[in-house]
């Protein structure tokens, strides 16, 4: 008896955008037939700059992690258009973001200081503090747990007659969590002013999209929640901006929630602790690199004459300086103290906890004193 051999089914590449997903730029960065850019020249440059910033920061952060200067880091690498396109559709003065952990440029554009974000990755608790007035929830580590929060905020804004909109990011993997279902269901029922941006980047660590859901698309789930679902080429900044703008506008004018499936690809491993060569075929990665959103936008901007090598180089120099200043500020911050194990755990501390605090502060490990 021979054991039945698993049939070798040819697997198509994971991730990337469906041919019929909404797009305005083709693969090489030319406007598709009949398309009009929804962004002004200044907005396009702002978007490109944030994408470049994100990529440069990723490279720097990975280097810092390898040197042991920050902890585990999740790069945005490859998803810049998907994140920045949504961000450009938001008004930081009134719209909220409830992030996951792979949306760095959106957080920075919304007002999170780079040095604070880096302190978070360094492991200092103060990195968790979003400055007053910045309409941003803390980075979320438990997948999809931020979605109920986003719906609650949207409900609160609606109850109070405020015109803000809530945008929350979630991944293809996290959309399998129960919180995803409960949140979209409630948002549909109460017509909450919230936009769910599902970044389908092809992988949940190693689990490919094809093993995450049998649904024809993630956007198709929207129908079950009574809201519009949109599939967009997540590597096309213009298209992502346009669907996000439309969804934000709908939410702001009382039209309720939207589910956007931004179809993109994670060009870097899940995080700095991951080894994607164990599960991503080399030829797939190579093919997806050809769809990198940055060259695609660069081609378009160059073709329409708003960007040239000189301007991009100026941008790059300024970005490198800005990142260096952020790293320097974060590293100049005083190291954490044992008392921070307790800070903000409660508004007021019981004598029992105060005693625990004394005991910890009085017995710090030698070398840390």
């Amino acid at each position, binding site marked *: 008896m021979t054991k039945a051999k698993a049939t070798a089914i040819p697997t198509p590449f994971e991730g990337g955008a469906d041919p019929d997903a909404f797009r305005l730029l083709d693969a090489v960065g030319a406007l598709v037939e009949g398309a009009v850019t929804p962004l002004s020249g200044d907005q396009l440059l702002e978007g490109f700059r944030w994408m470049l910033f994100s990529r440069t920061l990723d490279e720097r952060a990975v280097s810092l992690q390898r040197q042991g200067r920050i902890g585990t880091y999740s790069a945005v690498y490859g998803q810049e258009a998907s994140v920045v396109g949504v961000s450009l559709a938001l008004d930081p003065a009134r719209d909220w973001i409830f992030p996951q952990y792979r949306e760095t440029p959106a957080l920075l554009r919304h007002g999170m200081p780079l040095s604070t974000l880096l302190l978070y990755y360094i492991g200092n608790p103060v990195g968790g503090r979003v400055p007053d007035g910045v309409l941003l929830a*803390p980075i979320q580590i438990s997948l999809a747990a931020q979605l109920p929060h986003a719906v*609650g905020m949207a409900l*609160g804004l609606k109850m*109070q007659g405020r015109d803000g909109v809530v945008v929350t990011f979630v991944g293809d993997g996290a959309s399998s969590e129960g919180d995803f279902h409960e949140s979209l269901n409630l948002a549909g029922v109460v017509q909450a002013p919230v936009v769910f941006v599902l970044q389908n980047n092809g992988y949940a660590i190693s689990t490919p999209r094809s093993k995450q859901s049998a649904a024809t698309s993630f956007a198709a789930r929207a129908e079950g929640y009574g809201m519009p679902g949109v599939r967009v080429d997540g590597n096309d900044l213009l298209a992502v901006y346009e669907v996000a703008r439309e969804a934000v506008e709908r939410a702001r004018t009382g039209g309720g929630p939207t589910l956007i499936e931004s179809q993109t690809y994670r060009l870097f491993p899940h995080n700095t602790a991951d080894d994607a060569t164990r599960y991503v075929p080399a030829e797939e990665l190579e093919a997806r690199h050809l769809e990198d959103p940055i060259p695609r936008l660069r081609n378009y901007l160059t073709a329409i004459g708003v960007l040239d090598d000189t301007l991009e180089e100026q941008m790059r120099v300024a970005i490198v300086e800005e990142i260096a200043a952020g790293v320097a500020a974060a590293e100049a911050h005083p190291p954490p103290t044992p008392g921070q194990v307790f800070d903000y*755990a409660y508004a007021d501390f*019981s004598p029992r906890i105060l005693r625990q605090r004394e005991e910890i502060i009085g017995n710090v490990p030698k070398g840390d004193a």
Partner: protein
Amino acid sequence: MAVLTMVEAIRQALEQEMERDERVMILGEDVGRLGGVFRATDGLQARFGPARVFDTPLAEAVIAGASVGLAMSGMVPVAEMQFLGFSHQAFHQIADQIARYRFRSQGRYPMQITIRSPFGGGVRTPEMHSDALEAQFVQCPGLKIVMPASAYDAKGLLLAAIRDPDPVLFCEPLRGYRLVKDEVPEGDYTVPFGTARVVREGTDVTLVAWSAAVQLCERAAELAAEENISCRILDLRTLVPLDVEALAHCAEVTGRVVVVHEAPYTGGFGAEVIATIQEEAFYALEAPIARVTAPDTPYPIAGVEEFYIPNEERVLAAVRRTVGTTA
């Protein structure tokens, strides 16, 4: 002063606080139109409208989780878990999100949220409703755990909970909703957390309890009195924060202690009570501290519930054993 049942006292607290503070809102399953399955929110939707007394879809995680965003938006949510036995569906949102949001955000986002939930056995509910899960929530730093035993305390502790800047799990003994009746002032008052209440003075042994187990201890104390054993009863009122001084004082006053709770034996909060007393007042003890609890078995179906929940006979036996040790 009016005598109210516990559920009436809770309802009164909710109504008065919604009247006083327009940020306060209620959300949960069946809390609006029906007024709650135990009528704790009866009439409130008619009075305050469907937005402030909000009937949610049947989804515990998003009831708890939406409360986070509502609190961030400036509302003061009072969420209801229809039964504590179903709160595991929301456990992540309560334990990992609500409880540690102030901490994670370094004070930017305090969670002024109260989660009310009936729990405990004795009314022959269907399976899975009645579990006493309080000790599980005690292991969720950032959360306060409140367990009233009287109607007076239910109102005063609930008002304190809603006004507390930290999140509070407010557990209501469902068999006490209508059985427990006592005098409740019409006006505004709060009962501070972390202050245990001496329910009955006594000299031989202190019975430490909370929630519905307090009434059980009162009945057991009556039986013990017939045997000339004088029982003191301490109602902890809140498990977090814990009134450590009151626990130490028990050992000093009576030298003997019995802890009674409805949750299973191993790892139950009774173990914490005992550990605390031995830390604080070991040399005042005259006998090992006993515990009377549910067994380490799953909460059973209704027909055997009466054998599962601690009863007067078991408490009395523990009292006799404890007092008899050196008597």
